[in-house]
C-alpha cells in the first residue's frame, strides 16, 4: 500500500466512517422526535394540543380522544411509587456504602443490580399471580369492608376491591424502581471522598452525624438526579403496569379500581386501533410521554452537571 494512501486517505476514510455512523445516532434521536410528532399530528390538529392534553374523554368508538385520563394515571402512579420507593432505596444505598460489612456489601449490591436488570414482564407476571391476590385479600377487602361499615363516604374513593387496579400498579412500580434508584444513589454516595468522612470522625461525630452532615449533603445532587431518573423510568414503565392496572381510561379513577397510564394505553390499544385518528391519537400520547421523559431527563442531567462543578456547594 502506498504511504499516502495508508497515512492520509486512511485517516480521512476512518474519521468519515466514524463521524457518519455517529451522525446516524444523532439522526436516529431526531427521528424519534420527528416521527412521534408527525404520527400524532392528525390527533393534535383535530383536538388542538391543549385540547388534547386536557380532554377528559378517551372514546375510540365515538372518535373522541383526550389524553388527560392516561396523563393523570401516569403522574399519580409514578409520584406515588417514587414516594414509596425513596426512603427504602436511600437506606439500601446507605447500608451498602456505610454500614454493611465487607462480605455483605458485594452480595447486597449484586442482588440490587440484578433486580434492577430484571425485565418488566417478570415483575408483571409476579404481580398478577402473587401481588394481586395478596393485595386483594390482605389490603383491599379488609379496607373495603371496614369502610362500608364505618365510613361509606370513602367507598367512592376506594373503588372496587378486585386487586387489579391502581394500587397494585403503584406497588409493583415502587418495587421496580427501588433497585434502580438505590443503585444510582449508591454510586453517588460512593463518590464521597473518604477524607471527608475521616475529618468528621476526627471531630468526634457519630456515624449518623457523619452521614447526615457530610455524606448526604456531599452526594445530594447525585441522589437527587438519581431520583429524577427513577421517576423518568416509572413514567415510561409499560409492561408490569399494563398487566396490573386494569386499563380503563374512564375517569374518575379510584385507589383500588382500574386506571390507565400513557404507556399502558399505547401497549393495550395500539394493535387494535382501527381508524387513522385512533392510531394518531395513540402516537400523540407517545409524543406527550416523550416530552415528559425529555423534560425529566434534562432536569436530571442539569442537576448532575451542577454537581460536577462544585462539591456540596450551597
Amino acid at each position, binding site marked *: 500500500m502506498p504511504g499516502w494512501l495508508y497515512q492520509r486517505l486512511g485517516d480521512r476514510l476512518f*474519521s468519515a466512517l466514524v463521524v457518519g455512523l455517529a451522525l446516524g445516532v444523532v439522526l436516529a434521536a431526531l427521528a424519534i422526535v420527528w*416521527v412521534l410528532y408527525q*404520527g400524532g399530528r392528525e390527533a393534535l390538529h383535530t383536538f388542538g394540543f391543549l385540547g388534547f392534553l386536557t380532554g377528559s374523554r378517551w372514546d375510540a368508538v365515538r372518535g373522541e380522544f383526550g389524553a388527560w385520563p392516561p396523563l393523570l394515571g401516569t403522574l399519580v402512579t409514578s409520584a406515588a411509587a417514587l414516594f414509596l420507593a425513596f426512603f427504602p432505596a*436511600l437506606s439500601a444505598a446507605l447500608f451498602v456504602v456505610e454500614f454493611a460489612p465487607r462480605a455483605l456489601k458485594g452480595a447486597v449490591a449484586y442482588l440490587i443490580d*440484578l433486580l434492577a436488570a430484571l*425485565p418488566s414482564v417478570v415483575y408483571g407476571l409476579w404481580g398478577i399471580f402473587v401481588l394481586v391476590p395478596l393485595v386483594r385479600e390482605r389490603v383491599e377487602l379488609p379496607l373495603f369492608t371496614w369502610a362500608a361499615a364505618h365510613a361509606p363516604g370513602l367507598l367512592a374513593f376506594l373503588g372496587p376491591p378486585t386487586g387489579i387496579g391502581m394500587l397494585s400498579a403503584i406497588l409493583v412500580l415502587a*418495587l421496580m424502581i427501588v433497585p434502580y434508584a438505590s443503585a444510582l444513589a449508591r454510586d453517588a454516595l460512593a463518590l464521597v471522598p473518604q477524607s471527608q468522612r475521616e475529618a468528621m470522625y476526627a471531630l468526634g461525630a457519630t456515624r449518623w452525624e457523619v452521614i447526615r452532615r457530610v455524606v448526604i449533603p456531599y452526594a445530594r445532587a447525585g441522589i437527587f438526579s438519581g431520583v429524577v431518573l427513577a421517576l423518568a423510568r416509572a413514567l415510561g414503565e409499560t409492561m408490569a403496569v399494563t398487566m396490573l392496572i386494569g386499563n380503563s381510561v374512564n375517569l374518575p379513577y379510584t385507589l383500588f379500581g382500574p386506571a390507565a397510564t400513557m404507556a399502558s394505553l399505547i401497549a393495550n390499544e395500539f394493535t387494535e386501533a382501527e381508524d387513522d385518528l385512533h392510531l394518531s391519537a395513540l402516537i400523540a400520547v407517545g409524543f406527550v410521554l416523550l416530552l415528559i421523559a425529555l423534560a425529566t431527563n434534562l432536569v436530571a442531567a442539569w442537576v448532575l452537571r451542577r454537581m460536577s462543578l462544585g462539591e456540596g456547594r450551597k
Partner: protein
Amino acid sequence: MNLRRRYLRDRVMQGLVYLGTLAVLLPLFFILYYVFVQGIGALDLAFFTRPPAPPGEGGGGMLPAIVGSLVVDLIALALAAVFGVAAGVLLAEYPDHPLNPFLRLVSDVMAGLPAILMGLVAFVLVVKPMGHFSGFSGAVALALIMVPIITRATEGVLKLIPWEITEAGLALGLPRWRVILSLVLPAARGGILTGLMLALARGAGEAAPLLFTAFGNPFLTLNPLEPMDTLPLKLYVYAISPYEDWHRQAWGAALLLAAAIMVANYLARRATRS
C-alpha cells in the same frame, strides 16, 4: 445535645437504615424465589424443543420464542454495536469534533426514554412502509434502546486507556486510524464487551417495544422479515391468558429470562475485571 442522646440517635437511625434495607431486599428476594420455584418445574424438554400447542390444550413449548429472541436480539445488537461503538470512538478519540456536544446530549437523553416509544418509532419507520409486522422491525426498536448504552460504555472505557499507548503508536509512525483500530480498541476490548453484554441484557428483556413490531408468531421461523415471537412477548401473552398451562410456561419463560440476564450481567462484570 449530650453524648447519650447522640449515641441513641445514631443507633435509632442505624436501625431505620437496616429496616429500610430489609424492606427493599425482602420483597425482591421473594420475587426471585417465586420465579425460581414456579419456573423450574416448567423447564422441561418440551419447553425448549416444541412449538406452542393450540390455546387451552396444554403441552407445547417455547421453541419459536426462544429462537425468535436469539434472532431479534442478535440483529439488534449487531445494528446497535456498529453505531454505538463508532459514536463512542468519536466521543473519546476525537474530543474536539463539533458533533460531540450533540452526540453526548442525544445519547444521554435517549438512554432515559421509555422503551415503548422506540416501538412506536420502529412501527412508523419500518412496519408501515413494509406493510406487515416483522422481527426486523423489532430489532430496530431494540437497537434504539441499546445504542446509548453501548456508546456510553465505549466512551467510558476508551477514556481509561492510557494516552501513552496512543503516543507509542504515533511515535512508530502509525496513522490515527491504525492506532485506534490496532492499539486502542483491542486494549479496550473488555470494557466494550461489557457494554455490549449490558445492552443485550437490557434489550433481551423488553417486551413493550415488540408488541407492535415483532408482534409474535406461533410458528417457528428464522426469517426476520416475518413476524417473530420473543420470550418476553410470549411471557406477556401467556401471563394474561386464561389457561393454566400457559401460566406455567410463563413462569418458565420468566426463569429462563432472569437466568439469561443474570449470566449476561455476570459476564459483563468479569469482562470488566480482566
